[in-house]
């Protein structure tokens, strides 16, 4: 549960706020509003009823507030535009109309504060709220300093935080009344509030704000060493486990569909959406409807619908289906008892960080149990002094699957804890093998130290210099300006998360504007810092020279119409055996792919053309003779081989022309009925036209758009 909030924004709308200053292209008010809107939309995006806000205008033409009475003029020119409560889009639209400069400069800032305090007190009473008043002004209205003491004591008593932001308060050229400034400053200081210039606040705004989440424990129990059930020598310490890393996800889009516009007069009683006029765009939510089918040879289409309640649960054992009766449904569950059991200890330096599996957690001793805190402290410190990690078996709750975790000590002046990292099981590792990178082993077992895959000394030296020159460990600056680590985790913000939230808020306030640019801070770490690169230029160049990396030219990959024929180890010339036949070779449907390739190997122009023609026909026959989808996979394989070879041999037309024809034949149902499923397979496997960028051939012109268009189901010209 997040803390309840009540925030009142007081916006100075005096006539003078409509002026432009300090070379800014927008008026002081609009400048102030960039700040206000940012704050308000951030609150709205939390979608919480308990995040309440109010907006009060100061120095407005009219007057509307609870304290105004006809006897005194103290509260005139103060207008409450929005009472304290959750803000929604209609409020935003209304406020946008209302927050414009007035025709007056009359109105008292302190009175506005009293109005705001009154609003907060009325609504929040004595309940637990975070109370806050934010006043933005250019400070040249009146500030009636009488009764400031009462305000400060009230603020203190109710725990109201006061933030006052002045437009250009720091600029001596600008005519802020010195008295006002001092009065305000004193006030804020008395209330432990914040006082600053708007410019500074807007600069701060670019630093993304982070949501704080109240920690919720995910395990509460013992950290044990040994078995307390059966041994007297077991250790058990009360601990709690909290998440350390939880990925903050960007808001996700929902799917909608535009409501069909119904012609007037049509009966639409059951369709008419009730609150339509509230929605600016007529979007209807989209849901997923799920149906289940089982194969049934007698049913049309070979499939029959079944209701979900006719189905039971089960698993696949290879091609055998093993149903699990409702009564036995727990039979596959592994019984486990909650606990965090230490298995043993490992040396810190030998732990490979690439074994880290999942989100990390933090383990602390039970929070109100000093003895447990002391006990865990001894454990943490012992690990720390020995440069050791513990390995434990964790079952967070009875019945959950056990996981293996690493427990690493963290010792700090104000916190001692264990960080918990999940470790892989045997099944989680795949053994893929790769050749060594520092030597080449030949077939005969000889080790080579010089090879085109191995770096020479010059490359090693250049790389070493480069890595050293690009060192980030002292490139940053700490608060005191001393060299420190660059790009620490605390300084990096999720680009996707903040970008999405930025554009949503921007679009909500300014629906007709284009997308705002990506804030610099989100992409700050997408490139190396320029200064560092300047220092490393020489070594980088040395790597390029010594490494001699070259892009493989699409041209050089292929050999127009020719193939390199692989040679078997035995030295037997199989091609000679094959081509002994002479004449035009006929490809048999049974052995189509090998014979197609072998025909291409013969390399003459006519052979190549004939090969494509023959295999093309075989594919069509496979589709035509297919019972249901039985022949589609083979057809697809042959298609793929044709596409690969056509690309490789730079003869894209052989493929593209054929493919165009095939598409027409399928969609016009000329291949013995409805073969659309075949077309979907072609599409899903990206067997469309060969694009000129895929194929080095000059002039083989199928562009990206044409290729994309081709894959659509429509039959185009």
């Amino acid at each position, binding site marked *: 549960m997040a803390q309840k909030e009540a925030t009142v924004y007081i916006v100075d709308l005096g006539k003078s706020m409509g002026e432009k200053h300090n070379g800014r292209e927008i008026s002081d008010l609009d400048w102030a509003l960039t700040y206000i809107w940012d704050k308000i939309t951030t609150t709205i995006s939390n979608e919480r009823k308990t995040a309440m806000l109010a907006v009060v205008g100061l120095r407005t033409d009219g007057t509307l507030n609870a304290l105004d009475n006809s006897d005194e003029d103290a509260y005139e020119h103060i207008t409450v535009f929005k009472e304290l409560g959750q803000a929604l889009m209609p*409020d935003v639209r209304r406020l946008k109309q209302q927050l414009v400069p007035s025709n007056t400069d009359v109105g008292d800032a302190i009175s506005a504060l009293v109005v705001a305090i009154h609003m907060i007190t009325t609504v929040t009473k004595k309940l637990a709220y975070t109370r806050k008043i934010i006043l933005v002004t250019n400070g040249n209205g009146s500030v009636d300093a009488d009764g400031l003491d009462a305000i400060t004591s009230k603020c203190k008593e109710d725990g109201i935080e006061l933030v006052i932001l002045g437009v250009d308060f720091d600029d001596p050229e600008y005519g802020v009344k010195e008295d006002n400034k001092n009065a305000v400053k004193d006030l804020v200081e008395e209330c432990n509030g914040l006082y600053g210039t708007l410019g500074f606040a807007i600069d701060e705004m670019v630093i993304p704000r982070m949501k704080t989440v*109240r920690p919720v424990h995910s395990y509460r129990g013992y950290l044990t060493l040994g*078995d307390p059930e059966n041994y007297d*020598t*077991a*250790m058990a310490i009360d601990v709690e486990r909290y998440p350390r*890393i939880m990925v*903050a996800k960007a808001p*996700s889009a929902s799917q*909608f*569909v535009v*409501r069909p516009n119904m012609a007037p007069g049509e009966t639409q009683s059951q369709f008419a*959406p009730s609150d339509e006029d509230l929605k600016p765009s007529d979007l*209807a939510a989209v849901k997923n*409807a799920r*149906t289940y089918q089982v194969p049934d040879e007698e049913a049309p289409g070979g499939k029959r619908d079944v209701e979900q309640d006719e189905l039971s649960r*089960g698993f696949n*054992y*290879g*091609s*055998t289906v093993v149903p699990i009766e409702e009564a036995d449904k727990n*039979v596959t569950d592994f019984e486990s008892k909650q606990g965090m059991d230490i298995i*043993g*200890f*490992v*040396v810190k330096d*030998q732990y490979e960080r690439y074994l*880290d599996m*999942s989100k*990390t957690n933090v383990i602390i001793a039970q*929070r109100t149990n*000093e003895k*447990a805190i*002391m*006990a865990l402290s001894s454990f943490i410190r012992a690990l720390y*002094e020995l440069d050791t990690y513990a390995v434990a078996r964790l079952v967070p709750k009875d019945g959950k699957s056990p996981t*293996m975790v*690493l427990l690493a000590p963290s010792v700090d*002046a104000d916190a001692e804890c264990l*960080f918990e990292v999940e470790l892989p*099981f045997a099944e989680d590792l795949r*053994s*893929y093998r*790769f050749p060594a*990178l520092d030597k080449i082993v030949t077939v005969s077992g000889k080790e080579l130290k010089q090879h*085109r*895959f*191995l770096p020479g000394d010059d490359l090693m030296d250049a790389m070493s210099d480069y890595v050293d020159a*690009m060192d980030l*460990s002292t490139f940053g600056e700490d608060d005191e300006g001393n060299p420190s680590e660059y790009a620490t*985790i605390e300084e*990096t*913000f999720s680009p996707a*998360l903040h970008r999405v939230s930025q554009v949503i808020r921007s679009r909500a306030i300014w629906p007709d504007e284009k997308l705002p640019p990506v804030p610099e801070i989100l992409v700050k*770490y997408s490139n190396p810092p320029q200064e560092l*690169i300047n220092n490393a230029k020489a070594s980088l160049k040395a790597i390029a020279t010594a490494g001699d*990396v070259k*892009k493989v030219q699409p041209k050089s990959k292929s050999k127009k119409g020719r193939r390199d024929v692989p040679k078997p180890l035995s030295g037997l010339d*199989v091609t000679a055996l094959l081509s002994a036949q002479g004449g035009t070779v006929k490809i048999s449907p049974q052995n189509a792919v090998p014979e197609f390739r072998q025909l291409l190997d013969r390399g003459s122009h006519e052979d190549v053309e004939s090969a494509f023609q023959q295999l093309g026909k075989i594919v069509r026959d496979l589709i035509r003779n297919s019972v249901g989808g039985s022949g589609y996979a083979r057809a697809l394989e042959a298609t793929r081989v044709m596409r690969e070879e056509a690309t490789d041999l730079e003869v894209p037309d052989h493929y593209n022309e054929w493919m165009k024809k095939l598409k027409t034949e399928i969609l016009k149902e000329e291949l013995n009925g409805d073969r659309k*499923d075949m077309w979907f397979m072609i599409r899903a496997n990206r067997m469309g036209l060969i694009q000129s960028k895929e194929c080095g051939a000059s002039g083989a012109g199928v562009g990206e758009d044409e290729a994309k268009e081709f894959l659509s189901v429509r039959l185009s010209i």
Partner: protein
Amino acid sequence: MADYSNHNRGQEDEEDEEDIDETGYKTIKDAVLFAIDVSSTMLTKPPQQDSKKADRDTPTIAALKCAYSLMQQRIISNPNDMMGILLFGTEKSRFQDESTSSRGLSYPHCYLLTDLDVPGARDIKRLRDLVNDEDEANQLLRPSNDPVSMANVLFCANQIFTTKAPNFSSRRLFLVTDNDTPHNDDKALRSAAAVRAKDLYDLGVDIIYSAIPSDPDAPAPVTKASRASASGDGLTLLQSLLSNINSRSAPRRALFSNMAFEIGPGLKISIKGYIIIKRQEPARSSYVYTGGERPQLAVGSSTLQAEDTARSVEKVEIRKAYKFGGETVSFTPEEIAEIKSFGDPVLRIIGFKPLSMLPIWANYRPSTFIYPSEEDIIGSTRVFSALQQKLLKDQKMGLAWYIPRRNATPTLAAVIPGAERLDDDGVQVMPPGLWIHVLPFADDVRQIPDTSVVQAPDVLVDRMRMVVQQLQLPKAVYDPKKYPNPSLQWFYRILQALALEEDMPEKPDDKTLPRYRQIDKRAGEYVLDWGAELEEQYEIWKMANAGRHTATGATKRGSAAAGESGKRTKTVAEATSKSSDMISDEEMRKAFETNKINKLTVAVLKAWCKQKGIKLPTAAKKGDVVDEVTSHFENKMVL
């Protein structure tokens, strides 16, 4: 059977939006066909040896046993992969759809024991009977008098692959025979066989030849498998075959291919990424229809419908919108694309740091292994190698901007060097390369909950150090291979027992349980010492802090940290949870004054309310309890 690989609907929005180009062209499946020679030499039992471990089976039976256990393994680890077994040189012949009696002569002396397909319980049972029942084996495994033509065998395999496993990314033929020079005296047959072998090559089938040394003294190729089988040092033929086959599990697919790895501005090499570490989850349960003759799998399909009218909706009609302030904020598809785009897929180094600057908690998903590729950029391997060696030597890491796929969420990543690791036999267990270890952003880091620090005095730490030093794991490292996932193993044990109608196992074999007896034996005494010291030190601490913490100290008797001498351990441990929920008035007041009441747990708050006689509704939510406690203090203040 259709494989529209991209037709997974109903996934999370985000996943749906990301371009899935990792699926590649072919279906990512593997088909393995065993071709096992049934000749008189293959049916000869090895000479009797005294050693119990020595081979007792004929090479053919050993090969079948190997296929049997491989089938059992793969049915679980690779449930979509196909397997088949072809015997050749048999007296009988059988091919697809031909009954044994019709003596299909298309491939004489080839006997298709199990057709290439996803194996089922029936196949396994049949194979089990064959390898366990000598009579049945003798009937089938009878060598023919005429020699079998290798060309026929190979073409038979070709046809099996062509019809049963078209468009598979990996098709492998394991040829198990002791005859490495077939048709030695017939050139025509030899040529024909070579042609058929070339066919298989052109079809994209890998032929893997598993040699059975016919003469134990003959020099064998120096692979681990054959060496082990030849030397007969306890490893049986079966095991060596199995390890040979398992070791050929090629990287199934690259997570990404030829991605740009930008080491510095203007210096790009190309890399491939592989998933080597990934949590293996048990198979998801599916819906099964049991109304028919056999249980059938029900296939679910979902359609999109408009929520208000239940009208079905085409994908092109879908608009994406974000909820905001009670309404929706929408963007055009072009704008959505622009928002998501942070540039092309890349791994771009922005600098280097010592590995020690990578906090131990900075992780949330498994790392990706990368290895250089020469396909796009020549010279990638040597530059990559230089970087890997430098980072290893200096124990440094790269910091990189990382976009794994088009429109994927950009992250920062540590590029960590990984050294090649070999086992005792010199077989690689960890490949050499670099690892992309994705880092969390500031947004993802949760704060450590506030606690009071009660630092353990040095004497107590010393005691604990003694305990820790007794219990190092072997070689002081965590070796994942020694810890199979107990719940996963149990799941498959049960599933296998159900499918094969075997007896249900009673107790799981759990290798992750601590070895309690060892722990007691080696560290027990030291734990007791530590427990006694803790009692003492805690009493001292309590005295010293009596002024500040009176209430706490007094109610805290018999607190949690157990391990004390004698049989009290258990009781003490249990006594704790009760008392720990108590909190003193002073602490509560302090919490009220610092506005931290809502930081306390419900249990603590409720316990306190009960003590104060504040009535709470039974179903009180935390917010209600917090309000009650707050108002208690507020009212009291007024009084």
